[in-house]
């Protein structure tokens, strides 16, 4: 297995696990739930100001 492949996989794994751990720590799941349960003006561009 080439060094490039190993390094890329390691970087992806580190980004994924660190982001997941910090997201759990700061409780980002609640923000996601809140965003999911409404119509967001960001996605209704031009219609809702």
């Amino acid at each position: 297995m080439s060094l490039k492949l190993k390094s890329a996989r390691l970087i992806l794994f580190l980004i994924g696990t660190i982001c997941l751990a910090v997201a759990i720590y700061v409780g980002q799941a609640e923000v996601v739930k809140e965003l999911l349960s409404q119509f967001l003006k960001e996605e209704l561009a031009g219609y809702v100001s």
Partner: protein
Amino acid sequence: MAESKKRILERYCATIARKFTQILVFIVIFGGIFGFAATSIVLPIRVGLSNPYVIIADAWMLMEIMLTRAIVPLLALASIALFSLFIGRAACGWLCPFGLINDVIGAIGKRKKLSPNVVLSLWKFALFLAGLFIFIDVSIYYNEVINRSIKGYFGAFYGAPSTFIDPVTPMFSLLFWMTYNDKWPSNMSGWFSLPAEFYWRIFIMIAVIIACYYFPRLYCKALCPLGAVMGLASQYSLSFLSISKGLCNECKLCERVCPMDVPILDFLESGEIRHPQCILCLKCVEACPKRALTLKFG
């Protein structure tokens, strides 16, 4: 008769499993219709975020909206990185609701093939768009943090710049919202008073549907920013297709059935098909008469 049915099942096992998964995921994602509450699950799929019936988040839209609200999109980043690492772009082929719509339109469409160079150029174009949108999002984020908002420069699209060329959000959010809130005009003058952005987004949606009729999964190949980013990472994925040089007779059947127009035989020497447009739909594996293609992990 029973034997021929068994043969058909064996022959199309992956397609049946994929279609079943796609339809099941589509139903689960719109679980709000059946009374289920929103979850905190984030998948690298395109379905938009703001439809209240959607109970699973779209990683790309979540990332954009969080960045423009000056929040670091940790769950979206984790989802994109981990899914790319473990299953590459398989989420595009097996889970994405807009991918399913692309597949349905492609199945009834004309199926025109694109050359390998065009396919790669389209991915680079999509990657450029993704980079551009991330740059805009991060710029908005930074300027929000230092209390010097630049949102006004992006007009109605400041909250999620990629919705400017995105057929997903009109289909799954805007049209739902208009129906849900009874906003469809009741007379002719009402149609003229709708905002220009509405017509632009409907135009983009129809244009993409027509394009997908002629070129299967054209949105996934050329416009999907999430697919482009995952394509970059999926080249290092643990899941990949392998091709055996000894078994392959170069009949090109695999390339003909590939909805993403991946030049599979170009990987005959290396033996590992690591192409940014491969969505691991396994159509090539099914089509190969010599069973030269296999799905590998590791």
